């Protein structure tokens, strides 16, 4: 028989701002919500647990992206380490040989750059494959363990890749490739888990805004990685790897000791958000934001998206879905794939992530080769793209929350993104104008990209069609991001191919085409959501 904790009998609506503990007493002052002015009904549902979870998951992904950015930023130093000195003309080799000629892993920096690009592609492919697998694993195992394992394991591999090989002066192509494949697989464990944890803690109301703010983690990670790399690089690139992998390992340890993967772990069982946030009282909050019309008929009082599901099959879960009597089962991979909305959003995300990651990887190179700016300047300018992405993700998430619909916001943003790409490709040789255009482009591309990978994945993983009987959040996130990463991996190769055969303008045309294609993929969703918006407006007009 299942153990029923005593607090289940207490009316949970009695004091919505104070979560109740298992003993049945209101929590001591330590546990009062972080922000509780009476006007901010939206924020009063959040406790300090929410804040800590937000920050821990945020910084897990920040550290991951920081280590990737470190690799991008030290590429010049690594290729200098792997090649002998460049001799101008017919002058004899520099002496002494140990200082100038010894390392001949690659003959010149062009070959080294090709190999580094190949490493990026290998990483992205193994990351994509790992995402499909990790999403499935995350829904079956303890999210906290998988997350810590991914963070710490990836940190150890990066340490081996960058620091140990340099200390031992062991340079070997196959060793580097194997390590980077392993790194991709381990890092892929992080994203589905953090989105699942966030989905567990933050329900439908305000999800767009919270996730928009939270998905700034990738961009913050880029900025942090650039900062770390540039400050430590002078000691040697191996120390850049040492610092980022040590910090990442420390992050894994902190997550292991401090993360609560779902509110159930401290007994914060939730009812619908309508009880917690009086602002949103209408029936709209009961419907997932991407629903088709037929699911709009669901009006079950208990079955709301706000239900917090823990990942394990525990007996307490029976209280969450009393009408079914079954604990949530982790969904199968193909079932998750066939959920409505997963396939079009995955394909759209593949195109968007291609454009996004190509900017991420190639922008400093484009800036320094096209305008002749120095690498440090180009690195600093590329931060503006990330800043635009952060603002875009947050603002667009907020707008989509107010509208109650996500696809129209995406559509408008993608159309404007195509325009801003055209504008950026004709950017003059002026750093200020270039930075502004970069920020605008980042706003319009980064916004939808962030939304699809976080808020929309959470929506998809918590649809009503699952009816609370299936745990799909991490799996769906894994599928969406995995498809996206395959697109990004293919894009790396294509961008370098186009650039070497043609020039940079065709690369921009390629980006614009990809943005248009992603708009096409979510076309059906846009049409159905616009139709439901029109219907709602009509019914409201009739009601007046």
């Amino acid at each position, binding site marked *: 028989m299942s153990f029923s904790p005593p607090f289940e009998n207490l009316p949970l609506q009695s004091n919505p701002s104070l979560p109740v503990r298992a003993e049945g007493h209101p929590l001591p002052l330590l546990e009062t919500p972080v922000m509780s002015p009476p006007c901010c009904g939206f924020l009063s549902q959040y406790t300090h647990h929410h804040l800590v979870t937000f920050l*821990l998951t945020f910084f897990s992904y920040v550290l991951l992206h920081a280590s990737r950015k470190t690799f991008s930023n030290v590429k010049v130093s690594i290729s200098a380490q792997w090649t002998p000195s460049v001799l101008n003309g017919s002058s004899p080799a520099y002496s002494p040989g140990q200082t100038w000629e010894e390392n001949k892993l690659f003959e010149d920096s062009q070959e080294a750059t090709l190999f580094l690009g190949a490493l990026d592609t290998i990483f992205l492919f193994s990351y994509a494959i790992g995402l499909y697998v990790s999403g499935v694993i995350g829904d079956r195992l*303890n999210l906290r363990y998988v997350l810590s394992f991914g963070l710490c394991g990836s940190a150890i591999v990066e340490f081996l890749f960058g620091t140990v090989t340099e200390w031992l002066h062991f340079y070997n192509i196959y060793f580097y490739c194997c390590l980077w494949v392993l790194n991709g697989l381990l890092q892929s464990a992080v994203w589905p888990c953090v989105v699942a944890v966030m989905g567990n803690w933050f329900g439908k109301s305000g999800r767009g805004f919270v996730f928009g703010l939270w998905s700034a983690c990738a961009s913050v990670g880029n900025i942090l990685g650039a900062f770390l790399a540039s400050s430590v690089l002078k000691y040697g690139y191996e120390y850049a790897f040492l610092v980022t992998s040590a910090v990442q390992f420390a992050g894994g340890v902190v997550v292991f000791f401090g*993360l609560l993967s779902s509110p159930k772990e401290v007994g914060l069982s939730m009812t619908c958000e309508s009880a917690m946030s009086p602002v949103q009282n209408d029936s709209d909050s009961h419907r997932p934001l991407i629903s088709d019309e037929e699911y709009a008929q669901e009006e079950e009082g208990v079955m709301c998206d706000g239900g917090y599901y823990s990942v394990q099959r525990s007996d307490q879960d029976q209280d969450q879905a009393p009408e079914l009597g079954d604990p949530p089962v982790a969904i199968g991979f193909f079932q998750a794939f066939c959920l409505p909305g997963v396939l079009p959003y995955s394909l759209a995300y593949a195109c968007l992530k291609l454009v996004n990651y190509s900017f991420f990887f190639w922008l400093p190179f484009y800036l320094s080769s096209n305008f002749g700016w120095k690498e440090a300047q180009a690195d600093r300018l590329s931060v503006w793209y990330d800043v635009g992405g952060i603002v875009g993700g947050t603002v667009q998430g907020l707008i989509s929350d107010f509208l109650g619909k996500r696809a129209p916001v995406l559509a408008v943003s993608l159309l404007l993104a195509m325009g801003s790409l055209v504008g950026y490709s004709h950017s003059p040789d002026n750093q200020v104008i270039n930075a502004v255009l970069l920020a605008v482009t980042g706003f319009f591309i980064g916004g939808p990209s962030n939304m699809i990978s976080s808020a929309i994945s959470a929506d998809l993983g918590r649809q009503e069609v699952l009816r609370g009987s299936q745990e799909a959040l991490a799996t769906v996130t894994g599928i969406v991001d995995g498809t996206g990463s395959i697109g990004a991996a293919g894009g790396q190769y294509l961008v370098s191919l186009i650039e070497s055969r043609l020039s940079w303008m065709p690369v921009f045309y390629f980006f614009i085409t990809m943005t248009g294609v992603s708009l096409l993929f979510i076309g059906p969703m846009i049409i159905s959501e616009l139709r439901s918006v029109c219907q709602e407006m009509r019914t409201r007009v009739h009601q007046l």
Partner: protein
Amino acid sequence: MFTFVTLCITSLLFGSSYQQMEFQVCHLCVGSLQNGTAVGYFCASLSGRVEGRCCWRQQGERASIVGLDLSNCSLRHIEDLQEASTAVMIDLSSNPVINISDSVFQGFIELHYLRLPSTLQCPGGNASWEKVTSDGVVCLCEEQKDACHQDGNMSWNCPENSLCAPDGPGFTQCSCTGEYHGYKCLREGQFPTGLVFGILGSSTFLASALLWYTQRRKAKFT
């Protein structure tokens, strides 16, 4: 056991003050340094110690070769004189050597007086020496020039963070300046490992302890 101990003691005794026992260049041919030769005179003026054909000078803890006299040794080939790279004066005259590679003298930054059979050219060419005289039997190269500052040429172009330094007659090397070190002089300074890991370790411990106390302490075991 006894032989092992003896060997150990022997090597310890000889190792400290008689490092030069292994140097083959001093015994390339029989005999020892003569007083009448240029090298011998030079050695006596420095109060150096003669051993085989080498003149040793003690400088503090270390001893180094300052003179080498291989004249009249019936040497046909001279390939490796690296053990005597600190020599100031070398005499190779009266040897039936036909040619000698320039690289034999790479690293001989102290060399200022070189006597060669007249069949040979001064290493690095005549432009690398201040004074080159030849009397048909012996070629004398004196006062090696700094190859980094050849008159008429620009000083040697070394890559970033390195400076040109002489490396023997006609040779230059690029050695790292200032705090730079490592491959291609890319690295600067010493990484403050202790400081970084101290801060990181203590903050990780504090954060983990704090978060465990506030978050997970009451968590149900899952």
